[in-house]
């Protein structure tokens, strides 16, 4: 069953930045893009499991903290070596001051 879960507050993320969100034994990365939209992906890099919340956001790209692998956080697409497996993404909506992500529980 899908459920909307509060991940963080709108003001908890700077524009062009990322934060970590843990829920139900899983971990996610929540992004705020330069054009002020919110996105969510799995928290761990598909290469060697570094947490992307320590990564660096530029435009629509998250660069992994460990080996600098890159993903488009809007689609989860891996952008080349060393990452080759895409990231899972999750629907996000903003409700007032809250950023919600849709998870299947």
């Amino acid at each position, binding site marked *: 069953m899908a459920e909307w879960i509060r991940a963080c507050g709108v003001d908890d993320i700077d524009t062009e930045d990322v934060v970590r969100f843990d829920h139900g034994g899983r971990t996610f990365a929540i992004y705020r893009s330069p054009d002020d939209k919110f996105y969510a992906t799995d928290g761990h890099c598909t290469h060697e499991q570094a947490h992307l919340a*320590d990564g*660096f956001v530029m435009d629509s790209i998250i660069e992994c*903290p460990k*080996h600098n692998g890159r993903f488009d956080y809007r689609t989860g697409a891996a952008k080349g*070596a060393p990452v080759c497996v895409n990231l899972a993404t999750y629907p996000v909506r903003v409700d007032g001051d809250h950023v919600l992500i849709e998870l299947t529980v």
Partner: protein
Amino acid sequence: MASDAAVIIGAGFAGVSAAFAMREAGHAGPITIVGDEAHLPYERPPLSKGLLTGSHTGLMPIRKAADYAVAGIALTTGASATGIDRDRWRVELSTGHALAYDRLLLATGAAPRRLDLPGSDAVTIHTLRNAADLARLQPAFAGARRLAIVGGGLIGLELAAAARQRGLAVTVIEAGPRVLGRGVPEALASVLAETHRSNGVTILTGVAPASVSAAGVALSDGRLVEADTIIAAIGVTPRTALAEQAGLAVAGGIVTDNMLQVAEGIFAAGDCAISAHPLFDDAMVRLESWQSAGDYGVAAGRNMAGQGQPIGVVPWMWSDQYDLGLYTAGVPAAGATTVDRIEDGLVTQFQLDPSGRLVGAASLGSGTSASRGIKIASRLIAARAAPDPGHLADPSRPLKALLQ
């Protein structure tokens, strides 16, 4: 030049990255990688980390076997290049075969320095560079109780951390006045040394090993470090013999220009090469890091495909010890001014050259927390920026603002 064949000597990260980059850059001729190890090319960093602690098993391939076939890259493993005949444009192999080349890449990497002391013929002194070394070290680790590590560099300290995680008693013997004397600022090295000590590692500095025996390592000051297993982690030397035999320039590495070219048709990249770096006034730089081996490999592959671009990448390195991650970028200049930035659980040092330009940075923090500041520093270095030292030092002012 009918076939336009490329030969790559060395199946490490630099060689493999070059082969794929060359293909992606449009090279249509044959590409052959020759590697003297028997394995599908694999990543080295896990050798001193998860593969020793046991948190990982199995070598981690750089690319899947199928990727080589898809890209049309021939992989000849278990064979070494024994000579380069530059007049006939051929590489001679240990198998007795020869390969014709129009473009050649030397990506032979580096080999660990051996510890040559009285007694070293009679006992095993391990080194760790490749899968064969790991296969010897793993069973020794499993049976070991007391480990002596000669050398307090990054590999020595990663080994110490892995050994403590396995419950071994560990002594690190470092001849210099402190660990990580090469390339890691003292402010960060002292935090790492303290972490090792609090994890039970004995670190001895300013003392050299004098001889080895079944009892352990005897020191120059007469003390004995009792050990049943000894590892030398005293640095590496670039593998340049092949280049020297072929009459190529070698000076602390195979000498390349800032497009990674050595001579007509011949390129070099990775740990074996010393290259002029355009971001640092073409200073000659030799790097020993995973990221740089990959970045330089890619740059060499593109230039072998005809792109002719000077390297633009900023050197980047990381190391994991316990739950700490060390990240560095750039090339610290001699006589540089340093600026320290101390944040919650994060120590960062920036190096500015005499004109105020940022040339290097290093940061240490838990997990991967130190990475972001170094990514920002790396971009500032690439932009030849001279950031305000007051801003760098002030933890209340975000580093990212310096990029605007």
